């Protein structure tokens, strides 16, 4: 199917680009690791406290790391004209944009997922909540990429859009943060977390269906300036 080929070509291109700009792509993960490793040093010898706030630390760091990486989602395509070519493609822009978001998640969300278990152990999180932490990250980080894409698409044409981007996107990130860290917290006390996980799944599906269109429309608007 030609449309799927176009989608796959965009994902592949962005992954190749990420490989060739390794230092830039590694930044969010490094940030994630640095913030989390600094917390035990800042809090001091209070393992109980650290254990209690570990879900919050990991999730807040993941959220900020994703925000840090958002600007690169469309910036270079906007600057070198590739975005114009994507918008002029006969295939639906929302599908191509979804390709870019997929590649963004693979290069920023997935690495967080991979290093998270190590950091969770480092913060002394109980074993039974580890799998729930990974599950919330697996469900939550794609939501962050999808919602973020709408914000970036709106601000990519502005010269100093960074501040506006945070203001736009952060309120929408809050529900993800609340449900995800709450799920992990409940899991560490051995309580059921089905409700939170179901809400995260529904948020992910909603974002998956609803985010690409406004992103495509916002990109068309940004390119017009």
């Amino acid at each position, binding site marked *: 199917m*030609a449309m799927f*080929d*176009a989608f*796959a*070509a*965009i994902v592949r*291109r962005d992954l*190749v*680009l990420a490989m*060739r*700009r390794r230092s830039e792509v590694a930044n969010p993960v490094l940030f994630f690791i640095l913030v989390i490793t600094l917390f035990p040093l800042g809090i001091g010898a209070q393992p109980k406290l650290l254990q209690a706030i570990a879900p919050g630390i990991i999730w807040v760091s993941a959220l900020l790391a994703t925000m840090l990486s958002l600007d690169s989602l469309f910036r*270079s395509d906007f*600057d*070198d*004209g*590739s975005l*114009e*070519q*994507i*918008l*002029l*493609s*006969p*295939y639906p822009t929302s599908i*191509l944009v979804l390709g870019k978001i997929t590649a963004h998640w693979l290069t920023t969300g997935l690495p967080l997922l991979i290093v998270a278990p190590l950091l969770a152990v480092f913060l002394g999180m109980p074993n039974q909540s580890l799998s729930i932490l990974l599950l919330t990250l697996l469900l939550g980080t794609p939501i962050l990429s999808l919602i973020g894409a709408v914000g970036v698409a709106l601000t990519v044409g502005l010269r100093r859009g960074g501040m506006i981007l945070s203001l736009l996107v952060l309120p929408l990130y809050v529900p993800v943060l609340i449900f995800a860290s709450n799920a992990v917290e409940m899991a560490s006390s051995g309580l059921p977390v089905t409700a939170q996980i179901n809400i995260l799944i529904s948020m992910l599906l909603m974002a998956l269906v609803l985010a690409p269109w406004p992103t495509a429309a916002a990109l*068309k608007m940004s*390119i*017009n300036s």
Partner: protein
Amino acid sequence: MQSNSTHQLQGENLSCTRDDRELFTGLGFTVHPGQVLLLEGNNGSGKTSLLRIICGFREPDTGAVRWCGEEIPQSQYYSDMAYVGHLDGIKKELTVLENLKLSLALGQPGKLTIQKALDKVQLSGYEDTLIQALSAGQKRRLSLARLLITHNVLWILDEPFTSLDKQGIELIESLMAEHCANGGMIVMTSHHDVNLQGVDVQRIRLS
């Protein structure tokens, strides 16, 4: 290349205002297969704005652009047109081949394969070279090679001769003449004199 005679690009009563300055108003044109529409005018006279309106990036303040009688934006239009603008639209961290493969995936296959198109624009042998290592003129020729590998009837070119040498300009002119002879059409701006023999060239002067 399809030499379908029903293809037609029409601009009706177009006007564009930018920062309270009227760039053009009541502009109309019709381009038929085999024709070139050359936009002339000084810097800031609205040539690029008009091209962006024709691309569908920008909405005209009045009037409409029609492709085969139907107002753009419409999906048929985007599979029939190709645009090379001020920005090359090529990724400098990728190789020549990777860039063209993406363009091909984003469009529909045209009459030439990537290899043949590279031969045409005299870039064969550079397939695996990173764009960073190419000169400005070579980049320009690469972005024009994109026109050859995808299916298209209408070329929209914004200053296609920028940073090309004399030989490069002749090469592109011959490609343009060939495109028109095959029933294609071109809308372009240029500061240089355009030397297209045997091609029907319409000129619009913006001021």
